[in-house]
Structures are given as C-alpha cells and as structure tokens.
C-alpha cells in the first residue's frame, strides 16, 4: 500500500492477458499508473512490452482482464475511442505521414482526439509544440527530409498536441546517439516536471533511472517485478531475465 491509495489511478491494468495462437505475449499482468507519475515498463526483447502498449491504446484487444482509465474500462474499445478518452502514443518504429508537411504531421494528433482544435488554434499549438521538441523553422518541409531523431521528435509533438491524460512512449529513445539521448531525456524530464502521466518502454537503463520513480518488469509475458526503480534494477530475478536474454 502506498500513499496513492486514496486517489484513483490514472490507469489500472488488471489481470490482462493476450495471446497470439499458442504464444501468451501478455500473461495475467496487473499494475497501476497514478496521475503525474512516470513509470518504466522494461524487460528483455519479446517480453511483451509493446503488446502491453498496444492493449492499452486499443491497437489490440485483450483476451482477458480490465484496463481502467480513471475508473472506466477501456479494454477492447476501438483505438479511436481510447484516443478520444485521452491516451496518446508513439510507436517503436516511427510512423510518419509522408505526404503531409512537418506541421501537418504534428497537427494530425490535435483535431480528432482528446483535444480538438482547428484553424488558427491548431496551427499555433502545433508550432508551439514543434518548437518545444526542437523542430522550429521547418514547418513546411516534407517529413521525408527529416533525420530519424527529428521524426521521433515529430511523433512526440503529434502525441502531445492531443493533451493526453496518459502518454505511452515505446522506445522513444532507441536509436539515438549519446548527445541526442541527452537531449531526449531532458525533453521527457520536462514533460515529467509538468506533471504528465507517462509509461516509458525503454532499453536504455540510464534513461529509466533518471526518468522513472517506479518500474514494472516483464519477462516472457509475465510481470516479474514492480517497485522503486533502484531496487527493481538490483533484483536478482530481473538481472537474470536480462542476462538470460543476452545469452539466448
């Protein structure tokens, strides 16, 4: 029991299971995410992290269990409905809208989702967020001219423009070089300081250490640990899961 016990969690995952044929990608997993909290969802490759993100955002439907967003069960709801209710996400493999400009790519998240804007308000907000993520001055460029990190930045702007209640970042820092990584971590830190509620899926442990107060660890679809980041990362079972992955 922690000090959040009286407040309703922003997101509550309860006994969620999802299998693909015989493979149980997410096996009876439960955890809570509280408002203004940034938690890490970690685990070796193929442990079910992205599947969990897909279940929360509605890209996949769980076979079993409940996913409650501020008390309302959203498990199995269409992805667009879940976006309306305030869940935004980025993708492990970045997804751009190639025939749209940089500005329009950012705007795409702000018209139909949790925040609904149009016209001048939308343009202003998108410009503001592009500046925020470090993409000012290239609003009218086609996205194909963007570097990988800039595409990731743009995807973050597209998620943020909906003013989400819960933000899901799936390996948003992957593939960045050390200096880009520092910039990236600083950016997410800012979001955390603003009180955003975020789940971070990440293999970069330095990022997890500096950004997340708590972590949930998955291995082979099962939650094997949960708790304060420092203690979880020192947990022998967690270390074994990661090492086992490396030996495989």
């Amino acid at each position, binding site marked *: 029991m922690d000090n959040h016990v009286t407040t309703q969690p922003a997101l509550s995952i309860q006994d969620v299971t999802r299998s693909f044929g015989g493979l149980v990608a997410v096996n009876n997993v439960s955890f809570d995410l509280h408002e203004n909290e940034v938690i890490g969802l970690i685990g070796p490759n193929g442990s079910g992290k992205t599947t969990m993100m897909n279940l929360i*955002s*509605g*890209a996949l439907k769980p076979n079993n269990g409940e996913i409650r967003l501020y008390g309302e069960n959203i498990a199995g709801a*269409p*992805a*667009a409905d879940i*976006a*309306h209710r305030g869940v*935004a*996400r980025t*993708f492990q493999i970045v*997804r*751009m*809208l*190639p*025939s*749209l400009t940089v500005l*329009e790519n950012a*705007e*795409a*998240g702000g*018209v*139909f*989702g*949790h925040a609904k804007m*149009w016209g001048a308000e939308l343009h202003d907000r998108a410009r503001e967020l592009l500046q925020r993520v470090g993409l000012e001055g290239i609003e009218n460029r086609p996205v194909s001219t963007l570097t990988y990190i800039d595409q990731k930045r743009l995807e973050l702007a*597209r998620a943020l423009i*909906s003013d989400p209640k819960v933000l899901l970042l799936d390996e948003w820092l992957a593939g960045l070089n050390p200096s880009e990584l520092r910039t990236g971590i600083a950016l997410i830190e800012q979001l955390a300081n603003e009180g955003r509620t975020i789940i971070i899926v990440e293999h970069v442990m330095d990022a997890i250490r500096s950004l997340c107060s708590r972590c949930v660890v998955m291995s082979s679809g099962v939650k094997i640990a949960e708790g304060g980041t420092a203690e979880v990362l020192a947990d022998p079972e967690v270390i074994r899961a990661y090492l086992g992955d490396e030996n495989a």
Partner: protein
Amino acid sequence: MNSEVRTFGIAVILFLAAATLPLISSGYLLSIGVSIAVYTVLATSWTLFSGPTNYISLAVAAFFGIGMYVVAGGIDLLPFPVLVLIGAVVGALFSAIVGLATLRISGVYFVIFTLGLAELIRQVVSWGQATMGTSSGLYVLTDFTDPQIYWALLVLAAVVFLIGWWIGRSRLGFALRIIGNDEVVAVHSGINTARAKVILFVISCTFASITGALVAPRYSYVEPTIAFNPFISFQVVIMALLGGVHRLWGPLLGVIPFTILWELISANFPTQTTLLLGAAFLLIVYFIPHGIVGLIESGIQKWKGDQHG
C-alpha cells in the same frame, strides 16, 4: 487567400466559356462536350474518395447505372427532376450499405469487390427484367435536348468542384489524408476511419448516380449492358490517374485529352478498344505515375530551379 480568389476567378471564367459550347456547336462537338462533362463529374468525384484513401473503386458503373435505371424505370410516372433526386437517394443509400460492408476490408479486396458489384447488379437487373417478362431494356422518351443535358452536367460538375474544395479544407478532408498515409496513426489520433471513409464513399458514389440519371434521356433505350458497362469504371480510373489524383483539378486534365483521344480511337479502331484501353492504362501507370498534374508541377519546379541556378 489572394491566390484562392484568383483560382476561383479562373474557374468561373472556364465554366462560363464551357457553357457557351452548345451555342457554338450542336452536333459532334457537343456530343464530345457531353462526354467530357460526364467523365469530369465521374472522375472528379471518384477522386474525392479514391485520391486520399488509395482505395481503388471500380464501382462507378454500378452507381452510374443505378441512376440511369431509376430514370428509365420512372420516366412515365414522375417528373424528371424528382427522378434525379430519387436516383441520388438510392445511390447514396446503396453506397452507404456497400461502404459499411466493404471499407473495413483491405484495399485489394475492395477493388475486387467493387468490380464484382457492378457485374452483380447488371445480372440482377437483367434477371429481374427477364422474370417480369419485359423486354431487355426500357425506353426513355423525353424531350430533353443535348444542350440542356450538357448544361445540367456542367452545373453538376461545378457542384462537385465546390464540394471537393470544401472537403479539402475541412476536418473530413484532413482525416482522409491521414488515413491514406497511415491508418494506424489515424486511429490512434482519434479518427473513426470507417465513418470517414463511408461518408466520402457515399458522396463520391452519389455523384455517379446523379450523372447516370442526368444522361439517361440521351439514351432512348436503356439496357443493363449500357447502364452498367464496366468500361465506364475503368475509364474513370484511367482518366483520374492520367490527370493526377492529388489535386482537385487533376482528373479534369486527364478527362479532356483522354475523351478526345478515345473518340478518335473508337472511330478509327472500333474493334481494338479494349486492347488500347489496357495499353493506355499500363503506359500511364508506368510513365506518368503522378499524372499530368505531376508533370506540370515538376516542370514548374524545374523551371524555378533553373531560374535560380
């Protein structure tokens, strides 16, 4: 804004110029004008849906035929304008059903389905007429003249352009562009993709039905092979691709040369039209994948580049 006013002004001038055609010519030229007007409406409205979504619909003939048959079937009972309205409503309802049933399936199956649809309706209509013991077609005897039909089609074309312009600036249009780029991003951005696609599909198909209804009086005898001719669907796709599907005025640039060329081909090589249609399709897709609009725009860009360099 300034350039928008200018574009609008040019459009009005072109529209008025096109409207004078029946005053200048009544015979052959006017009949080509009617064909161009028909295909301008069909190809432009087809592009409203298929351009942004990349769903290739081969159902144009189905909806065109529905409109034509509503008029042919009711011409002795109801006034023509009422029949056009009924044709529009029937087309809209039917396309809503088809859209709801098929737009969840992926693009490839959609193409096949729409192709089969026109054929299916044609068979059903033929069968219906056979079992009712009527002749294989219906007489459409009116006193509408070609100029009247031409002007009606011209007004319809103007309406299509205005609606297309409005969609292009609307949230619906933005939603469709996002869907066409990446449906996964679209749903996670909160877009009800099925609804957006169905709305656009219905708008697009309804125009095909209205077109069929308006031109019905040109055919004094309507039969299923005329009304539901799959050639119509193929030609619409080819013309739209030839012109370019990423600009509202793109299809028009394909319709005009193609219709004229087609008149020449079918006059001089009446037995090889199918072969030539297929060849035209291959050449267009291979050599001008972005259509005439693409050629023009890259030409302008190159020209501008040369100016700077």
